[in-house]
C-alpha cells in the first residue's frame, strides 16, 4: 500500500498536478484581466467561476491528503469543461450567431489574443479543464483499486 510507505502516493501527485494546472490557469486569467486589461466576457466569467474554486478545493484535499476531493472538484471541472467547449465552438464559428448568449459588453465571439496563430484563450481554457478532469478521473480510479 502506498499509504504505508513513506513515498508520495500516486493519487496525491495526480491531485497536486490538477491543482497546479488550476493555479496556473487562475493566475493566467487574472494576468489577462487585471494586468493586461482585457475585460472578461460573460462566458469567461462563468469559466472563472468554475476554475478559481478548484485552486482552493484541490489544495484543501492535499493537506491532509483526501482522495474524496475528486467528488467535490469533478463537478466544477466538468461544468468548466462544458462552458469552455461551448466558448471555443463560438469563437471558432461552429455555432451560429443567433445562439450567442451574450450581446452586451464584450461579445464572447470576440478573440482578443491569438498566440502562435492558433492558441486562443478559450482553447487554453478547454485544455486546462480537460487536463484537470483527466487527472481527477485518474486519481479516482487509483483510489478505487
Amino acid at each position, binding site marked *: 500500500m502506498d499509504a504505508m510507505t513513506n513515498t*508520495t502516493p500516486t493519487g*496525491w501527485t495526480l491531485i*497536486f498536478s490538477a491543482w*497546479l494546472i488550476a*493555479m*496556473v490557469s487562475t*493566475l493566467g486569467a*487574472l*494576468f489577462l484581466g487585471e*494586468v*493586461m486589461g482585457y475585460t472578461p466576457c460573460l462566458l469567461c466569467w462563468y469559466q472563472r467561476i468554475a476554475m478559481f474554486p478548484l485552486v482552493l478545493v484541490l*489544495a484543501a484535499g*492535499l*493537506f491532509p*491528503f483526501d482522495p474524496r476531493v475528486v467528488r467535490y472538484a469533478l463537478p466544477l471541472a466538468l461544468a468548466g469543461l462544458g462552458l469552455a467547449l461551448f466558448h471555443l465552438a463560438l469563437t471558432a464559428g461552429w455555432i451560429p450567431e443567433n445562439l450567442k448568449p451574450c450581446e452586451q459588453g464584450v461579445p464572447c465571439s470576440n478573440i482578443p489574443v491569438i498566440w502562435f496563430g492558433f492558441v486562443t484563450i478559450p482553447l487554453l481554457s478547454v485544455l486546462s479543464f480537460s487536463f484537470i478532469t483527466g487527472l481527477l478521473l485518474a486519481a479516482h480510479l487509483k483510489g478505487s483499486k
Partner: protein
Amino acid sequence: MKQKTIFIVTAMALLLVFVAGMLFYTGQKEEAARQLAETNRAALMRMHSPTEGKADAPVVIVEFLDPACGTCREFYPLVKQIMAGHPDQIRIVLRYAPFHPGSDQVVAMLEGARRQGKFWVALETLFASQPNWTEHHTANAEAAWQILGGIGLNMEQMNKDMNSAETARVITQDLADAKTLNVTMTPEYFVNGKPLPSFGFEQLQALVDQALADSQAR
C-alpha cells in the same frame, strides 16, 4: 512534510512569476505610453480646445474627458483644487472623449455653450446634474438639453452651433487624437506631455508636483 514543501515552494514560485510578470508588463506599458505621447505631441494639444489658466503657465494638464463619465465628474473638483493650490502655475486643456453612447451630442452642446462664453458653467451644471441625464452609461441628450436650458443660453443659437460643421470637426479631431494617444478610458491625464503611470488621484498629484518642481528648477 516533503509534500508540504513541494506545495509551498510551487505556490510561492507561481506567485513570484505572476508578480514579476506584472511588474515587467506594466513597466513596458508605461514606457510605451510615454513614448506614444512623446512622438505624438501634436495630437496632445490642439488650438481649438477649451482651456483655463494662464496661457504661459509652466505646467499644462491635458485631460481627456467625457461629460457622461462618473469618474470625470469626481475628478473635476479635485483637479480644480490642485489648480487653486498653485495659482498661475497650472493650465488645463480639455479634450473630448465622448465614449459613452449619446455623449457626443452632449459634447456638441458644450461646444455650443462655449460659443456663448458659457462653457465652464455648462460643464459644471452637467456634472452637477449628471445622474439626471445619464442612465446605464448612456447619455440622454434630451435631458441634458433641458438642464442646459436653465443657465441662460440662447438655445436657438445653441441648436445651430451644436450642429455646425465646426463642432463636428472638433469632436472628430479629439476622438482621432484619443485614438492616436491610445486613450481608451476617461478621464485620462497628461501632465506636460507625460501620461499617468497608472490611474489614480495620487498619481496625478505626484505628476503635477514633479512638473512644478521641474519648472522651478529651470
